[in-house]
């Protein structure tokens, strides 16, 4: 089969579009002075105490550069705030914050509280006109609403060093200096289980003005002064003006509504600042910002790929061109061996190969490169060096967990002709297809199966946001091994030994470990508002000093049709559950849509012993739809039954970057009532994944990151089984393959 000359697909069109030199410099990783980026809306220079671009306490209409991920820690005499901000799209910032503030009404003497903000820039500033940038924002829009406020704000650049801001604030921003209310009274804060959108409060109650000015004294130093309506009523013991009694504390009142501050930009990635609130309370803060679209080593530090070797003229190698060599039974083993060795040096495993006189297909497992296209490109280069000249069609099939997931079909002449040219050209000449299930003449590379692999690595596990112990951690050694018997059939296991940490075994609530262990499933359910503790007793599983087996499974992956993948996983599936998990996924290689179904029958594992169980058994399952919206946005809906037997759905939205970065958020709502669910009302969280190669330049598929769940509750909890199909097959499917295609010749 020779590849058709193809119509440019959606993906390749995008690649070729990069040839049009429009608005491109803004994102090029240049050391050129950071000229205010061209295509972006008004960018802030200073982070406020809420971790968003702004002044000190008040917001501005500024944004961060698209895709920026920023962390801010602000510590004052009144409170501590740790926030994470993400520029979701050029015009919208979202922030998640963890605050700690004093309260004389609490046993602990303080309250820790999470909050979520959103800011949208409605209008960008007119560069040569009078129109300022205008933004609208919601502060602490979900949950208890300690920082709850809304604002409409305008910011104008008067000259390159001077920006002025004025706006109207509701809620906390109008706790003093109110002008009256426009749309009715502001209801009191949510006294119940929290976790709900506070939409009934938005833009209600008193409205107060705020204003400020920021002046870039030098390229690194920015000074700010503001008038803010926030007089910190709760913190300073003004119980009459504090929305909720339990929030009242006894700090000294502010002298006035003027806040002064500065920010010093220490480097492209960090700034430090300080401020004085109301002439009374001082504070400091640090912000770190990084951007998945910019890397210290954008093109990577990997070794150069082998050059393409063009074929000799037919006259110089008549035998090679005739294809007569293919009749020689020793030819394929020798070629396969040589290619397998060369690929191994590139971090690729040659699993199997089909070789005929005019066509070669290699099936590779990519163990090194984050971008599958780079693995494919390097493999194609090596094929031109290893194959006799009569081989005219090159097929590189990607294999994940033993199953072929996609094939890139290229004409050898195109590979020779287009080496080291603009990547879009070879993208257009190559064809990405579903892999053929089991092509005739497929020969496994001798010595690859059965395959035993093991590794001994340190592990770190952390738990955040516990009010009593905000940072829990455990460090130890993990021995992982896998044994692949046949393509797609493997046994995997991990053995962990804790070395040290402050994460101890702990029962939920005020119970002791012994008391909790003595309770039956029915008693636990009754004590927990009618819902069994499927996750909220997670800390019962930590703090164990003896060796642990977090997982030990038999996995079987298959591909019954060219566009359908299946998985069966049996054994100790995760630290808390064991059983059987089955999954099927329909995902054609070039389709943005994927559909899946999963069903699990699991039993809860014992808190300590690897092979003992607790008397709780449940069947869970989901139907899932996955959709790639383009521009890196991927949505997922899972509907079905969760671990506590509750029914509902999870909605996730992830923004992913070609470098391998992923930033996502999810919400789960099930048929548990808010009372049954408890604090938080429904499950939600964010996930962040960063590729190591992005940070250090050295090629590796390893990533760091995790899920920041809101609260470990029992409603809407899914089984955490390893190796779900969608993420397994996607690296080599259309969107990801073409997103990384710029690395084909690299």
């Amino acid at each position, binding site marked *: 089969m020779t590849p058709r000359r193809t119509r440019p697909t959606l993906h390749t069109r995008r690649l070729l579009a990069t040839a049009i030199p429009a608005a491109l410099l803004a994102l090029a990783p240049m050391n050129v002075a950071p000229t205010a980026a061209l295509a972006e809306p008004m960018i802030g220079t200073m982070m406020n105490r809420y971790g968003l671009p702004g002044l000190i306490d008040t917001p501005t209409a500024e944004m961060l550069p698209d895709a920026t991920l920023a962390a801010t820690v602000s510590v004052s005499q009144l409170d501590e705030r740790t926030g994470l901000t993400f520029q979701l799209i050029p015009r919208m910032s979202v922030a998640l914050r963890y605050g700690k503030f004093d309260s004389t009404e609490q046993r602990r003497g303080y309250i820790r509280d999470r909050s979520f903000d959103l800011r949208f820039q409605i209008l960008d500033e007119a560069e040569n006109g009078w129109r300022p940038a205008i933004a609208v924002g919601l502060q602490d829009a979900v949950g208890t609403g300690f920082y709850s406020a809304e604002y409409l704000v305008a910011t104008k650049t008067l000259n390159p060093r001077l920006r002025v801001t004025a706006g109207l604030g509701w809620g906390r921003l109008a706790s003093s200096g109110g002008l009256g209310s426009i749309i009715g009274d502001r209801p009191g804060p949510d006294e119940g289980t929290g976790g709900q959108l506070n939409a009934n409060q938005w833009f209600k109650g008193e409205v107060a003005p705020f204003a400020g000015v920021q002046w870039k004294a030098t390229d690194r130093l920015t000074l700010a002064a503001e008038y803010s309506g926030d007089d910190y009523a709760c913190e300073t013991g003004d119980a009459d003006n504090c929305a909720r009694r339990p929030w009242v504390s006894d700090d000294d009142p502010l002298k006035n509504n003027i806040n002064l501050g500065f920010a010093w930009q220490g480097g492209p990635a960090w700034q430090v600042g300080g401020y004085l609130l109301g002439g009374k309370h001082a504070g400091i803060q640090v912000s770190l910002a990084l951007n998945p679209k910019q890397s210290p080593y954008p093109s990577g530090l990997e070794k150069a790929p*082998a050059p393409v070797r063009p074929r000799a003229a037919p006259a110089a190698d008549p035998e090679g061109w005739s294809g007569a060599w293919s009749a020689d039974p020793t030819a394929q083993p020798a070629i396969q061996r040589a290619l397998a060795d060369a690929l191994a040096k590139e*971090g690729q495993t040659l699993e199997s190969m089909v070789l005929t006189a005019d066509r070669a297909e290699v099936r590779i497992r990519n163990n090194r490169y984050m971008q599958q296209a780079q693995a494919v490109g390097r493999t194609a280069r090596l094929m031109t060096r290893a194959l006799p000249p009569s081989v005219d069609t090159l097929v590189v099939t990607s294999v994940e967990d033993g199953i072929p997931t996609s094939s890139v079909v290229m004409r050898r002449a195109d590979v020779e002709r287009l080496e080291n040219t603009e990547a879009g050209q070879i993208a257009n000449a190559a064809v990405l297809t579903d892999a053929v299930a089991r092509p005739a003449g497929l020969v496994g590379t001798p010595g690859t199966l059965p395959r035993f692999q093991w590794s001994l690595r340190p592990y770190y596990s952390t738990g955040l946001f516990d009010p009593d112990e905000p940072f829990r951690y455990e460090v130890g050694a993990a021995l992982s091994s896998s044994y692949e018997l046949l393509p797609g059939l493997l046994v995997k296991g991990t053995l962990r030994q804790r070395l040290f940490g402050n994460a101890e075994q702990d029962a939920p609530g005020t119970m002791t470990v012994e008391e909790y262990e003595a309770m039956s499933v029915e008693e636990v359910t009754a004590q927990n508002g009618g819902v069994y503790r499927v996750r909220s007793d997670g800390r019962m599983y930590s703090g164990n000093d003896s060796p642990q087996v977090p997982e030990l499974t038999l996995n079987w992956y298959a591909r019954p049709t060219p566009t359908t993948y299946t998985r069966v996983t049996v054994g100790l599936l995760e630290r808390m559950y064991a059983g059987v998990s089955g999954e099927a996924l329909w995902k054609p290689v070039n389709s943005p849509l994927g559909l899946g179904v999963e069903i699990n029958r699991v039993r809860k594992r014992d808190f300590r012993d690897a092979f003992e169980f607790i008397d709780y058994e449940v069947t869970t399952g989901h139907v899932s739809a996955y959709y790639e919206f383009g521009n890196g946005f991927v949505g997922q809906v899972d509907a079905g039954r969760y671990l506590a037997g509750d029914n509902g759905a999870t909605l996730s939205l992830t923004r992913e970057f070609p470098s391998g970065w992923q930033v996502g958020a999810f919400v789960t709502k099930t048929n548990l009532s808010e009372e049954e669910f408890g604090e938080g009302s429904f499950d939600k969280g964010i996930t962040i994944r960063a590729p190591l190669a992005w940070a250090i330049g050295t090629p590796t598929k390893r990533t760091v990151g995790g899920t920041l769940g809101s609260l470990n509750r029992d409603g809407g909890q899914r089984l955490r089984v390893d190796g779900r199909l969608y993420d397994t097959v996607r690296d080599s499917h259309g969107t990801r393959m073409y997103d990384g295609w710029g690395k084909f010749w690299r």
Partner: protein
Amino acid sequence: MGEILAMTVTFTRGLVAALALAALAACGNTRSDGPTTLDIGRQLVGQVLSGRQSAPAAPAPDPQAMAAEALAVNKGPLIMVGLESLGTTQVLALTGENGGMRTYMTESEQAVILRGFMLTGTRGLGNDLSVAEASGTAALVGAGRSGTAQRTMRYFSADGLERPLVFDCQIGPGPRPGVMIEDCTGHGLSFQNSYLPGAGVSRQWIGPVLGYATVQTLRP
């Protein structure tokens, strides 16, 4: 205070254990390869302490001696490339030829790709030039004629795309006989390449981060 002290102690002990752990870090035969935890730590610490580019560890060897040694050891075509921004000079050997394009590599497998005397790409330097399209310049310089040409230079950026920078260039003879100068501007950047094609010597701009490279043919 007592609590803080206790915590410090735990952390210090933790640090020692962590170092021990890192020492045994990541052994095994797993195929998914990449740097070990220790490598990563070392590199990240290096980045934080010394900025992006580490200083050359040893005093650079004398280029003349290096060239002479390379010529003696390697009988194939060789070039010597100096990166001005990094202050390094290395000898590269021809590893492949495709059409008019030649790929030269250092011992540590960093590559420079030339099309004739024109620098067309680099590999393995972290801020590589993916490809330079400058056939107009090549023709004018080769013929020793003055004129204008457009040059497109493509860079792989961390957002996954090859970003082209397009420059307008003025080509003409330089002050010294035989030297051709290419003056390019675009995107607020400007650079000046100089070529002495007959002698196989040139100074060419790689990109905004890496700056200029001097290329000298040791053995064609």
